C-alpha cells in the first residue's frame, strides 16, 4: 500500500474479529491531513474498535493501518507522542484538580514548557482550574479530556464520542471547543452517533453500520447523493388538504402532530401544492420546507435509526 503524504491516516482492508463476532468487516478509507473526519454510526457499529486500532491500543485481525505514514502495529512508540486521544468515557484521577491533571499528562509526554493556561482557556475551563476532577460535571470532564488530548501538541487528535451522555447545552459547549480546534487546522478523527455533530464539524463523514462503511463523503455530498429531495410540512385548519395534495400526484402523510408532510423532488412542486391549496380555499396556512439531514441519509442507507427515537416520521 502506498502512503500518500497528504494522508494522515490510511486504512486498508481492516478487519477485527472478537471470537465469532465480526466487529469491523474489511473497511478501507483514508483521512487527509488537516481535515475533520467523522465516523457516524450507532452503538456497536465498530467505531470505537476501529479508532482504538488506529490509536495503537488494539491490534487488528487483518488489514493494514498507517498513521502518519507509520504502521500502527509496529511503531507504537513513535506514533504515541504525535497523537492526542480523548477515549470513550474519558475519566481521570478523582482528587486531582483540572490544572494538576493537565500538568500530569504534560509530564507523561515529557513536555516542559506547555501552555497550561492556553489549554485551560481553549477548553473554557478558567473558572474551574482549581476544581478536583470528581466535582466536575460531565461536560466539563469532556472538555478537560479534550485539553489533555492536546498537551503534546499532537498532529492527529482522536475524539471518541466526545458528547455522548451530555445534555444539549453541555454538548454545544463541547462543540464550541471542537470548532476552535478545527480552526487551528488540526487533523481530527471524530466518532459520534449524533448527526448534528458530524454535520457541524466534519469535512468528511463515513457512515458505518455493522462493521461496514456504507457511504463516505462531505455532509452535503452525502445528502445530495442519498436524499436529494425536500420535505414540505403544511399546517392548516380547514379543507381537505390531504386529498388535494394527493390529487396532484404526491404521497402526503400525517405526522404525530396532525401536520401534513410531503416529500417533493423539486422546489417548483412546492409552488404547485401551495397554489392548489389556495384555490381550494385553505386558510391559516403555515408551512415549513426542509432539506433532509444525515439522519435521513443514515436511515435510507442502513434501514436503522442512529439512536432510539431519533427519527421523526419522514415520508419515503
Amino acid at each position, binding site marked *: 500500500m502506498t502512503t500518500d503524504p497528504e494522508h494522515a491516516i490510511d486504512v486498508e482492508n481492516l478487519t477485527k474479529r472478537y471470537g465469532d463476532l465480526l466487529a469491523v468487516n474489511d473497511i478501507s478509507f483514508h483521512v487527509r491531513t488537516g481535515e475533520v473526519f467523522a465516523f457516524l454510526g450507532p452503538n456497536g457499529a465498530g467505531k470505537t474498535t476501529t479508532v482504538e486500532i488506529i490509536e495503537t*491500543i488494539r491490534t487488528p485481525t487483518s488489514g493494514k493501518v498507517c498513521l502518519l505514514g507509520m504502521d500502527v502495529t509496529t511503531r507504537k512508540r513513535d506514533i504515541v507522542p504525535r497523537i492526542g486521544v480523548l*477515549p470513550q468515557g474519558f475519566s481521570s484521577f478523582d482528587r486531582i484538580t483540572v490544572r494538576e491533571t493537565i500538568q500530569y499528562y504534560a509530564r507523561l509526554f515529557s513536555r516542559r514548557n506547555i501552555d497550561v493556561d492556553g489549554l485551560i482557556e481553549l477548553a473554557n475551563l478558567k473558572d474551574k482550574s482549581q476544581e478536583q476532577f470528581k466535582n466536575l460535571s460531565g461536560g466539563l470532564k469532556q472538555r478537560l479530556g479534550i485539553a489533555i488530548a492536546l498537551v503534546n501538541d499532537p498532529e492527529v487528535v482522536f475524539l471518541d464520542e466526545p458528547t455522548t451522555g451530555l445534555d444539549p447545552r453541555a454538548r454545544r459547549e463541547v462543540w464550541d471547543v471542537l470548532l476552535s480546534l478545527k480552526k487551528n487546522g488540526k487533523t481530527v478523527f471524530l466518532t459520534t452517533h449524533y448527526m448534528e455533530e458530524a454535520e457541524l464539524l466534519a469535512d468528511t463523514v463515513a457512515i458505518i453500520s455493522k462493521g461496514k462503511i456504507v457511504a463516505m463523503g462531505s455532509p452535503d455530498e452525502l445528502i445530495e447523493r442519498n436524499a436529494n429531495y425536500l420535505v414540505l410540512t403544511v399546517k392548516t385548519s380547514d379543507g381537505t388538504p390531504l386529498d388535494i395534495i394527493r390529487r396532484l400526484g404526491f404521497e402526503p402523510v400525517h405526522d404525530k402532530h396532525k401536520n401534513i408532510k410531503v416529500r417533493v423532488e423539486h422546489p417548483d412542486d412546492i409552488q404547485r401544492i401551495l397554489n392548489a391549496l389556495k384555490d381550494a380555499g385553505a386558510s391559516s396556512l403555515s408551512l415549513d420546507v426542509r432539506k433532509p439531514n444525515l439522519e435521513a441519509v443514515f436511515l435510507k442507507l442502513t434501514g436503522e435509526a442512529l439512536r432510539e427515537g431519533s427519527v421523526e416520521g419522514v415520508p419515503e
Partner: protein
Amino acid sequence: MSRRVIGANLVVSLKTFSREKSVMFFTVAFPIILVLVFGTIFLNQDNVSFDLSVQDLDQTNSSARLVKTLELNGKFKITTIGPAIDARRYAQDKKVNLVLVIPSGYEKAFVRRLGLVGGVPNAAFGDPNASVTVTYIYDGGASSTSTKIQILRSGFAVVNQGMSGRPPFIREAETSMLTAKYRFIEFFVPGIIAMSVMTSSLSGAVNMNAELRQKGVIRKLSTTPITRTDWILSNILYQFILAVLCTMAILVVSYAVFSVRLQVNAWLLVFIVLEVFAFGGIGMILTRVASEAESATAAANFIMFPMMFLSGSFFPLEMMPGFLQTIARILPLYYVNEGLRASMIFVDHTAALRYSAIIGVFAIVVFVLGINTTRWDEGK
C-alpha cells in the same frame, strides 16, 4: 523506565492520598488505634494486682521475717508455696507470672554475715562475704513482672544497706519460664506493621488495576508514552512510601505511649520492601481474576482477613490448635510476622535471614506473575 514519569505518578498518588481522608484514616490512623486499644487492654490487665508467690525453702524465722518485710514494703499480696512443690511447675499450672524462691541456708548465711552471738550482732565474728541468692521464676511475657521485680529489688536493697560490708548480702538469680522476654505490646506491634503494609499494598494494587481500569483511566494512559513497567514501578514505589510512613507512625506511637523495647534495624526495611512486592503481586493477579472493582475489593478482603487472624498478627500461634498452626505456615504474612519479630524483638539475624529468604522467593514469584497478568492496552 522514565524517572520523570514515575515522579509525575508519585505526585498524583500522594496528592490523592493526602486529599482522601478515609484512605488516610485506614492506612495510618487505624493501625495506630489498634495498637493503642490492644496495648491499653493488656497493660491494664497486667496491672490489676501485685500478686507475689513466695517459696521459702529455708523455713526459718529469719526467712519468714524477710517475707514479712517484702509484704509490707512492696504492698504485695503474698501467697506462699510449700517447699516440697516444684515452683516452676506451680507457676506454669497456676498461671503465676512471678515466684520468688528463698533458698535453704538463708538463716545460716544471715547469722554468719552478721556474726550473731546470742542474738547480738558482733562485727568481729561476721563474715562479710556470706550471702544468699534468691531466684525469680518469671514469665517475661507479662508486663507486670518487671515492675514487681523492681519493687522486690528495692526491698532487698534496704536489707542489704542494713548490713555492713561491700558485697550485697542478698543476690538475685533469674529463671525465665518462657524463652522470650517481651511484653504483649512488643509482640503486637510487629504484627500490626505487617498487617497494615499488607492491606495498603493489596488495596493499592486493586485500586490501580481494577478501579482505574474500570473508570477508563488506564485506557487513556495507554495512549500516552507511559509504559506498563513505569506504571507498575510508580505504584510499587508509592506503596513503599506509604508503608514506611505508616510504620513510622506506628513505631512513634508505640515508643511514646508504651515505651516498647523494639529494635529498628535494616531488616525492617527489607521486610517492608518484600511485603510490598509480595502483596502488590497478589493484588495484580487478583485483579486479573476479578476484574470488576467491587469483586476485586471483595476478593482482596477475602484474602486479607483470614490471613490477619491465622498468621499470628494479633496473638501467638501457640494459642491456636495444631491444624491452624499448619495453615499459618503456608501463609505469606506468617513469615513477615515472624521475620519482623525475629529482627525487632529477639534481634536474631539468622532467623530474620531465613524468613526474609522465604518471603523473598514468594515475592519474586507472585510479582513476576502479577506483572505478566497485568494488561496495559485493550488486548488482542
